[in-house]
């Protein structure tokens, strides 16, 4: 059985950067597996700009950002398999893949980086009532039809959910000549980046219905109308607020879920809040030698952060293979209810180095204080402004500040 030093699963933004992170830190025997015919992942269908500000100090379109990384990878002698699906991973670091040229194969790795990205929540998952006609698509699938395949998918469109892809697709559909009737968001605030609300909706006079949701889909064959309703504080639709909108297409941008089917097959422990693997600050999962980064770990809002994270995960994999690092003592990380999640879930207890904590708040906060608590003592206090669930926050902490076996992260909104 062929054994690689490292196998990276997924050739999107995370997989590409993880490859470079490992390669530049001394690993040469690397296999990168991608199921699509090209490297680049979802970036290839993101033809809008806004990528690369942190990584390259430039504003690039998705495919250009991807190309920069693809070119770096192509300059290495990393083995790349395209059109190849990984069917299973085992906890002994063997995996089964298949493609048209080689059929079904099993290979082994000294280390694995999971970089499978995420998938979109579908209509079924949120149980929108009504008929089941054609014309109901997730925003990302719609983006693939329009931007990659060059197909028109509707003429009069409504969008449920103000996630970034939903906002981007609102503008995209308008530019393709469709009428975009509006965007509904069940929360009282947008779930997309503020700049996307401005540039994709406001600039095109597309209405955003906050605290609204779709409560019925009508049409036996193709969508012919939808009903939207206002929701109360518990997100339940309010009777009497129904509004029927005649559209032929409903796009859904109602959340992304890390795609961890393979991780679960391997028996990797997942975290309920992120839907991703539990990792330490080297991005190592509960199975030694398997690392995770990018949207398979937690859903990001900026690709630049995916790349940075993946560079580190790749580096960690290289260190694991080359040094076979010894067992660590860990500080477990927990948080209060005002945060959706915090990563990493545990921190290697050492006196040197820094750790970058990543978090999302549950509700928007104008001003807040984040307290890091060890052994009942606040070891650091950070003031933050304009926090919102759509923006992932980061805190860099010197590890020497951390004491004991547990770090609790609390966030408190400052009442103005």
């Amino acid at each position, binding site marked *: 059985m062929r054994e690689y030093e490292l196998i990276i699963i997924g050739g999107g933004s995370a997989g590409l950067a993880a490859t470079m992170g490992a390669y530049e830190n001394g690993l040469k025997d690397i296999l990168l597996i991608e199921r699509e015919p090209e490297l680049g992942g979802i970036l290839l269908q993101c033809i809008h700009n806004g990528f690369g500000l942190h990584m390259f100090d430039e504003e690039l379109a998705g495919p250009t950002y991807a190309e920069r990384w693809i070119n770096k990878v192509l300059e290495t002698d990393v083995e790349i398999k395209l059109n190849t699906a990984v069917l299973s991973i085992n906890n002994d670091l063997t995996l089964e893949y298949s493609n048209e040229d080689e059929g079904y194969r099993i290979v082994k790795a000294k280390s694995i980086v999971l970089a499978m990205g995420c998938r979109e929540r579908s209509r079924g998952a949120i149980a929108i009532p009504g008929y089941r006609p054609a014309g109901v698509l997730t925003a990302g699938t719609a983006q693939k039809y329009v931007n990659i395949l060059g197909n028109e998918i509707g003429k009069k469109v409504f969008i449920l959910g103000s996630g970034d892809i939903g906002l981007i697709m609102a503008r995209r559909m308008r530019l393709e000549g469709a009428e975009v009737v509006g965007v509904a968001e069940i929360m009282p605030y947008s779930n997309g980046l503020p700049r996307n609300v401005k540039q994709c909706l406001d600039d095109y006079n597309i209405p955003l219905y906050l605290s609204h949701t779709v409560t019925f889909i*009508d049409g036996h064959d193709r969508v012919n109308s939808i009903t939207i309703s206002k929701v109360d504080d518990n997100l339940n639709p309010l009777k009497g607020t129904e509004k029927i909108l005649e559209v032929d297409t409903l796009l859904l941008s109602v959340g992304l879920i890390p795609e961890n089917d393979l991780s679960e097959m391997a028996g990797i422990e997942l975290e309920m809040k992120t839907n991703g693997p539990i990792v330490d600050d080297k991005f190592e999962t509960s199975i030694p030698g398997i690392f995770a980064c990018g949207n398979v770990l937690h859903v990001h809002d900026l690709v630049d952060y995916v790349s940075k994270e993946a560079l580190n995960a790749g580096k960690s994999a290289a260190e694991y293979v080359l040094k076979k690092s010894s067992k660590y003592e860990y500080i477990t990380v927990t948080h209060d209810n005002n945060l959706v999640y915090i990563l990493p879930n545990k921190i290697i207890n050492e006196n040197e180095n820094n750790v970058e904590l990543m978090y999302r708040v549950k509700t928007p906060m104008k001003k807040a204080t984040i307290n890091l608590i060890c052994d009942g003592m606040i070891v650091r206090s950070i003031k933050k402004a304009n926090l919102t669930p759509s923006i992932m926050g980061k805190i860099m902490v010197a590890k020497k500040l951390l004491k004991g076996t547990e770090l609790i992260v609390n966030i408190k909104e400052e009442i103005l």
Partner: protein
Amino acid sequence: MYDYIIIGAGINGSFMAHELSKYNLNVMVIEKGPDVATGATIANSAIIHAGHDPKPGTLKAKLNVEGNSMYPKICKDLDADFKHTSAFVTATSMEESPSIDMLYKQAKGRNIPCEILDKGQAKALEPNLSDNTVKVLNLPSTGIITPWEVAYNLMEEAIINGVELSLNIKVLGIISRPKTCYVDKSQSMGRLGYEIITNKGTFKTANIINAAGVYADEIYNMLKPKESFSITGRKGEYYILDKLANPLVNRVIYPIPSSKGKGVLVVPTVHGNTLLGPSSDFIDDKGGNFTDTETLKYVKAQVNRTVKNIPFNKVIKTYAGLRPTGNTGDFIISESDEFQGFINVAAIESPGLASAPAITKYVLNTIIEKQVILKPKKQYINRTKLPILNRMSLEEKIKLWNKEPKYGNIICRCESISEGEILDAIRRPLGATTVDGIKRRVRPGSGRCQGGFCQPEIINILARELNKPVEEIALFNKDSNIITKGEIN
């Protein structure tokens, strides 16, 4: 002139077609939908009930028990899934407890294998049963199938053996005349002949089998009979849970039945998902198979009564189906007194799926054998089995890939379905022509992404294979197009 025209290609139309294809008869099936199994057959609980609960003395009771015993062999012959899961009828209060004893007695009287379990015994087998469970009736002969798979495979074998299937045909009217009015080459002994007027021309036949589901009353009434029956749609709404919710339950979990039927169930499926449902509400619109918030809430509340720890965050789909409920309280299976040769197979609501093979046998033995002389075909051809790669060993998969490299190209990541299997679904005798047709035959789009990733690829494969532009490849019928224009600039 046909010997038989079967109206409706649901589970009963398919069983009838399959049975008649064994004899030297001219048979046609007409179906208004774009595929086999698009009505009640596609949206039900997929259970082969044991036969414990229908009222004594009904056709439902007789045919359910018989049908249950026929399924394992039928599914084996057809290469369709059948799984003996067994079922629990659960009492969750002392008041419900006597119903368990009553059902036990009734089941025993019908020679249905059964036993009563106390709470401890039941929970040892099904840990997620409600803590309120007091007593359980275990019904080991209960099974589960994929109803449309059985229908496809039956119809496919019928087609291979000479039955004609015409899809997208809507019956507009039916006329009967004395058979002497026709040049009759049929083998029917009856005195009447029929003309079925459709949107695609008129078809002549000596006999009609009316298996039109919720529309069976409307079909029969086209003849203006003196005595008729009526069918009302009774809607059932369901949730489907992701495979990751497994194992929630290993058996079918029924509450105590009520006047509204078997109640809201928790059902494992053949493919490892879990169904929650159905509700039961009469509706006027026979096309009204929509879901609504209130009813879905009701389903949630009901299943929580019998089973605990249901992960509603693992829902991947909701759907609704209509059961054809007749006005007699029983199946309506008989030859019309007034119109000889016109056979109603109507009001086949629950336990219709479980009874279906027995219904066909009953129709054959009590009606058809008196209408025609049944001469078995000298040669009967069985359909070829199709490979399912995600159930194969590595060696078997490699062997298959050696024959056809497309079996190595995975299209559906959630269910691990290869391009080779999708091509099989299109190229087989009863081939898929739509995205849903592919999904029901080989499952891409049935998984947790619900087709988000593979649908564009499925459309491309269908377009290539059927030699059609992509905008003509639809979800399930010609008006349900997904792509509105093939190319934009």
